[in-house]
């Protein structure tokens, strides 16, 4: 019996429905894991990897 922390305190993992998801696009790669108990979300983790950066185009120094 594995106990995990949820919004309802420690719960037996076997009682929970586990759902996983993923987004992978040019902005991010994100995965998440949800645990549901009797239709209620009681635990949700996420891992976001940033792909899109804050870029500044400096251009070139002007000529005359």
């Amino acid at each position: 019996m594995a106990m995990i922390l949820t919004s309802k305190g420690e719960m037996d993992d076997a009682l929970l429905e586990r759902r996983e998801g993923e987004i992978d696009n040019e902005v991010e790669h994100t995965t998440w894991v949800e645990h549901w108990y009797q239709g209620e979300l009681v635990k949700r983790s996420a891992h976001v990897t940033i792909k899109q950066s804050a870029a500044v185009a400096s251009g070139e120094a002007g000529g005359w």
Partner: protein
Amino acid sequence: MANSAGMALNFKFELMTGIHALGPGTGVPVRTAGVADVLKAALFLATATRVPGDAVYNNTLELAASGNYTQGGKTVTMANVPSLKTNTGTFNPTANLTWTALTSSGAFDCVVFYNSSQSNKQVSVHTFSVQTIVAADFTLTMPADAAATALLQIA
């Protein structure tokens, strides 16, 4: 070989190390040699309106100080030195940021990096898919440390 106009390549990353202080000196802060500023990362609700044009960090619609979240965010580890990669000045923090055993006060989709050593001046804003965390970890991983992907780029 002909002359070629352009911004000095090293200038692009030297800006991020505080080497240059141009202009008449107004606003140039006092610095201690060899001591970097403190970079922090804060999470904002999806209802917030954070944009790159914001001058400084503020906590309007930041995650509430509950569920193991501390307003003001986390200090970012900065082991990488700003550098020039393929003619692009880059800076990329080295570590993941993890908020442990978090229960977010609402759905969030934004992290703001800001300089808490320099009057909380904003550094960058990054958005991602809307997340809600319940009694679990939220981990933010930095992009690959390369010219086209580093967290901060001056191309």
